[in-house]
């Protein structure tokens, strides 16, 4: 449910406004057709009408003229008018309960009057094709974009932010138990998709399969998922897509917004709490959030599993040592002025999670005995801390906007286990097997200019410096420094500023990068696990430079209000990571000895995306197939030799390149026979093929279908304001398209459902949600789960209870 009347958000906007006045005005009865003639000296008017998808007027919709204090509500006919001093660009934010918020760009002489068509907000994650001239600051109109809001995330609360995104068609997660998950877009993950947090690329050793994403799931308000190549705007690593976390809007001046959310999950006894307070004091913005979670070993619907010829116990049907905790905080402050906005955000993410003991070596029944508590986080375990400082500025003048994002990130990943695992004796590192420390400095700037009512140009530059250091008694990746930089130009054309029929976009980008990798010498140990004083070189010094060109061209055609067609052709690239070039060690998370290849070249991709949307009355349907070809796709291939390293009998895998193709698509259909009833079906499919070896690529999600029904009752009286019931079924096919040494995974069906309710007691509003996942306690293996390698099933039935209390405290100002 969207509670716009409770919390008012200002989304990050594309164009900012130069307005001198600070007068607060609430007008309900402005007359639409008079205003062009009522021009007091040097004032102009902006007019429009707000309608729904059937072109019916929406009364009482809230229109905010950004960067001013002007706020309007539409008349019973849906009209509004603003008076503005200059003939320049302005951005309006249009909101109405039950609809998706829209931003529109207007200007008195070229884009005026406008008709804003609002689309109903779906209660479940859905494809959103935004109509009209809502400018998107993050993607071109021809790209396939899905918007996920806070309420969508609340409904699919999982163990992590990535799990909460998984219901979106085309999105998946590579998970290690509960709490550690990394995103997959159309079968691509690791360094092929980018997570962009407020304009800065998240860098946290995402090459690792068991390295989860360091984002506080409670701190995210709105996410845009771009499926498909986005290298043009985002550079290397955006080859498969982008998960764009948009900054949370600050409240209006004159109040403090607070929110407390408590969450409890039955399956792993998760207790979570997130509290936030934010305010806007005459343009000074501030926000503070603290979140924490504690969870125990998770429950599975099985009392044993088979591995290495042993049948091993799962006592009490709980996987030993999968407990964890998370402690996160974020503080933002900034300025909101007539010229724009500048904010600084400091955040820390800290997660400690146990790893199932069999994840390191052969588990034996003896080892799985119950000596510990269900909440103990013992060895082996992962400890991940991620500090971030982000500085975002938007500055506008005339017909231009300048956006600058500066970021500093410090990621520290500890992997702890007992040294005997790796045939190492006691060292000064104690139980720290890996201590990876990554520092990243980022700078991005974009200049957006409106050349005319039809043409818009964006220029951008990006730069990043990354430095990795390591410690611990084991070795996998070397120390390195990476520089990356790029510049792009993007042109957008719309045949009309108001509800265009045709939109084109094209762009070009140049990138360069350099990796400087330092040699590593690993100490050798004797049979008594003591150091011999001798060393062996795992990798040599290495410097590699890369230069790439990428581009895209696309079109969006809207022949009528019923049909919309998009076509996007993009080229993308990815420079090999320092890990792919120079790693040399046993990666216990994947049971392999991974060997880098210093001669790797950049990957190049060519992708065609198509989107067809049908929307009429109660039915809407979007079909988004894609096909792609990759030149020199980098992947890990098994060799025919066992590792000669002393760390256990693993096979050696080395990084190679081959040509590959990907194809697939999503199909999402929504039917709303009644305003209260919403039925949605989504299908997703991706397949790939290694052209050199004639085999599929590993870790590819299988075909899957999701059906959801939502029924909403809005009373708006008494204690119970609204009630929403939903049920869903997910069907996942067998995955038999597997790579060498990868095992097929059988399919499964999962049922879920829940109730979401809103209550008002006295002056207090609160929201209570109860959700059941895997209602039938189905035992299943997840093809992309790291624990699938141990034949461990996924969590069983889970009941999630969430209580949310937002509070708005008005200030005297």
């Amino acid at each position, binding site marked *: 449910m969207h509670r716009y009347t409770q919390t008012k958000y200002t989304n990050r906007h594309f164009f900012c406004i130069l307005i001198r006045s600070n007068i607060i005005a609430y007008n309900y009865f402005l007359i639409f057709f008079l205003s062009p003639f009522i021009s007091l000296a040097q004032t102009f008017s902006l007019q429009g009408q707000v309608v729904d998808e059937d072109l019916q007027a929406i009364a009482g919709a809230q229109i905010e003229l950004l960067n001013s204090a002007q706020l309007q509500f539409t008349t019973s006919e849906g009209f509004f008018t603003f008076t503005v001093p200059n003939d320049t660009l302005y951005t309006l934010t249009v909101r109405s309960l039950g609809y998706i918020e829209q931003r529109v760009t207007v200007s008195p002489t070229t884009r005026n009057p406008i008709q804003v068509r609002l689309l109903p907000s779906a209660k479940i994650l859905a494809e959103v094709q935004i109509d009209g001239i809502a400018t998107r600051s993050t993607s071109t109109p021809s790209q396939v974009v899905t918007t996920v809001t806070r309420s969508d995330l609340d409904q699919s609360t999982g163990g992590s932010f990535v799990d909460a995104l998984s219901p979106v068609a085309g999105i998946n997660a590579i998970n290690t138990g509960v709490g550690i998950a990394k995103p997959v877009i159309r079968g691509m993950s690791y360094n092929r998709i980018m997570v962009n947090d407020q304009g800065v690329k998240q860098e946290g050793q995402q090459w690792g399969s068991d390295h989860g994403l360091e984002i506080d799931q409670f701190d995210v308000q709105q996410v845009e998922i771009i499926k498909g190549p986005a290298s043009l705007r985002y550079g290397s690593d955006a080859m498969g897509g982008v998960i764009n976390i948009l900054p949370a809007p600050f409240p209006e001046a004159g109040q403090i917004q607070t929110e407390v959310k408590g969450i409890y999950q039955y399956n792993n006894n998760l207790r979570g709490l997130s509290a936030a307070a934010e305010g806007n004091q005459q343009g000074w913005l501030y926000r503070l959030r603290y979140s924490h979670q504690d969870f125990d070993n998770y429950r599975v619907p099985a009392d044993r599993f*088979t*591995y*290495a*010829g*042993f*049948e*091993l*116990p799962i006592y009490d049907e709980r996987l030993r040592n999968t407990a964890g905790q998370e402690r996160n905080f974020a503080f933002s402050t900034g300025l909101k002025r007539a010229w724009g906005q500048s904010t600084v955000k400091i955040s820390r993410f800290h997660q400690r999670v146990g790893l199932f*003991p069999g994840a*390191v*070596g*052969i588990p*034996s*029944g*003896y*080892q799985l*005995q119950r*000596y*510990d*508590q269900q909440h*103990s986080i*013992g060895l082996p375990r992962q400890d991940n801390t991620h500090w971030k400082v982000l500085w975002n500025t938007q500055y506008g003048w005339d017909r231009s906007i300048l956006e600058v994002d500066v970021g500093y990130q410090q990621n520290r990943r500890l992997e702890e*286990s*007992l040294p*005997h*695992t790796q045939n190492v004796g*006691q060292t000064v590192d104690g139980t720290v097997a890996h201590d990876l420390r990554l520092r990243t400095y980022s700078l991005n700037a974009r200049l957006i200019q409106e050349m005319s009512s039809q043409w818009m140009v964006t220029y951008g530059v990006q730069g990043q410096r990354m430095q990795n250091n390591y410690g611990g008694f084991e070795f996998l990746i070397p120390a390195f420094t990476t520089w990356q930089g790029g510049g792009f130009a993007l042109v957008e054309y719309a045949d009309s500023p108001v509800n265009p029929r045709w939109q084109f976009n094209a762009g070009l980008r140049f990138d360069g990068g350099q990796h400087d990798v330092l040699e590593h010498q690993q100490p050798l140990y004797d*049979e*008594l*696990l003591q150091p011999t004083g001798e060393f062996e070189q795992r990798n040599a010094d290495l410097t590699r430079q890369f230069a790439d060109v990428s581009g895209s061209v696309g079109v969006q055609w809207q022949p009528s209000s019923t049909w919309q*067609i998009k*076509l996007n052709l993009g080229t993308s690239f990815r420079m090999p990571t320092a890990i792919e070039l120079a790693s040399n060690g046993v990666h216990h998370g994947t049971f392999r000895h991974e060997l880098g290849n210093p001669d790797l070249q950049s990957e190049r991709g060519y992708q*065609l995306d*198509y989107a*067809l949307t049908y929307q009429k009355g109660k039915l809407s349907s979007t*079909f988004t*197939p894609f*096909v792609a070809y990759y030149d020199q796709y980098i992947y890990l291939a*098994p060799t*025919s*030799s*066992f590792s*000669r390293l*002393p760390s*256990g*009998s693993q*096979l050696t895998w080395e990084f190679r390149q081959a040509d590959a193709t990907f*194809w697939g698509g999503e199909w999402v259909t929504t039917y709303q026979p009644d305003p209260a009833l919403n039925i949605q079906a989504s299908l997703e499919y991706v397949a790939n*093929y290694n*052209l050199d*070896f*004639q*085999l*599929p690529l590993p870790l590819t999600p299988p075909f899957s279908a999701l059906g959801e029904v939502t029924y909403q009752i809005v009373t708006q009286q008494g204690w119970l304001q609204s009630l929403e019931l939903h049920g869903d079924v997910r069907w996942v096919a067998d995955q038999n398209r597997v790579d*060498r*040494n990868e*095992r097929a995974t059988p399919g499964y069906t999962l049922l879920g459902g829940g109730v979401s309710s809103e209550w008002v007691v006295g002056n207090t509003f609160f929201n209570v949600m109860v959700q059941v996942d895997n209602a039938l306690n189905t035992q299943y293996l997840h093809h992309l789960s790291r624990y699938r*390698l*141990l*034949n461990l099933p996924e969590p069983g039935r889970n009941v999630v209870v969430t209580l949310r209390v937002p509070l708005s405290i008005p200030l005297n100002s």
Partner: protein
Amino acid sequence: MKNYLPILFATLVLTACSDNDPDDPSNDLDAPTFSAISRPSTQGDPNVVKIRGEYMEVLPENSTELLLQGELSDNRALSEMRIDIHNSQDGHTHARIEQRLPGFRVDEVVQLNGTSHTINQTIRYDDRDYLAGPYHVILHAVDDAGNSTSFADGSSIVRSVYLKRPYMPLIALADDPDETLEQLSGTAENALVVEGYLEQQRDEHNFAITFIRVSLVRDTDRDNDTDWQGDTSYEAMWGESQFLRDNTGAMLTGQAIPTFTNDQLPLATLWKNQPYSLISSDHERVLRIEVEDEGGNLAVREFTVIVN
């Protein structure tokens, strides 16, 4: 809508290219297969004991070598076989910090070719004094195309052996000189009477016993080679373990070890120290006696308890 037909066509064409050609070596997805690997038998074989849920072939105190036999084959071309023998007495909690004797360790890669190989490997362990206790003997194989056996699907071979050495602690039961006793009897609500003794500092190594654990566990009998320990109705510990930790990381610790006389400690002294009365549900539970010494050697004996 004609617009997406060309793309559909393109995807059909690309999909058609995915047919596997059975004659193409790059399509070999079959890993090598082990067969006829000599495994310890499970019923009444004097050379096999069950320790900590695993059936282990006993390598007697004065034995010098272990024989690995079996067959390995591949549909196309074998590349390598790996023999991995390592100590497993910490149960892979990897808790050992110090050891005075080295664990017997084999990490050998055998180069192979052709489609079949007869494994007939003699592995000697008499060149020096090694840690006594349980070991895993593991075989992996990989073929030319990179298909390898794995633990996950059970295609890699894991055997367990129990290496006995003259200098390891002795768990001796009365009237059982050849250590063939497998059952003990008792009556409910009475103490289980086990006559025997522990002996330390044998041989010239003189290792004192540093940890003793006696437990009564349910060991469900299954058709598989290895089972797991079930409910524990009794557990008593003396001394401090070198291998076993609880989940906080602390080593398992019990009461002080009673004094040995002439390097022997009667079992009756242990029972008096931490007594236990059998209950009827202890019937067919396993009495497990584990003894560690300061050298790191581990001795284990298990007996099925019959409650009358």
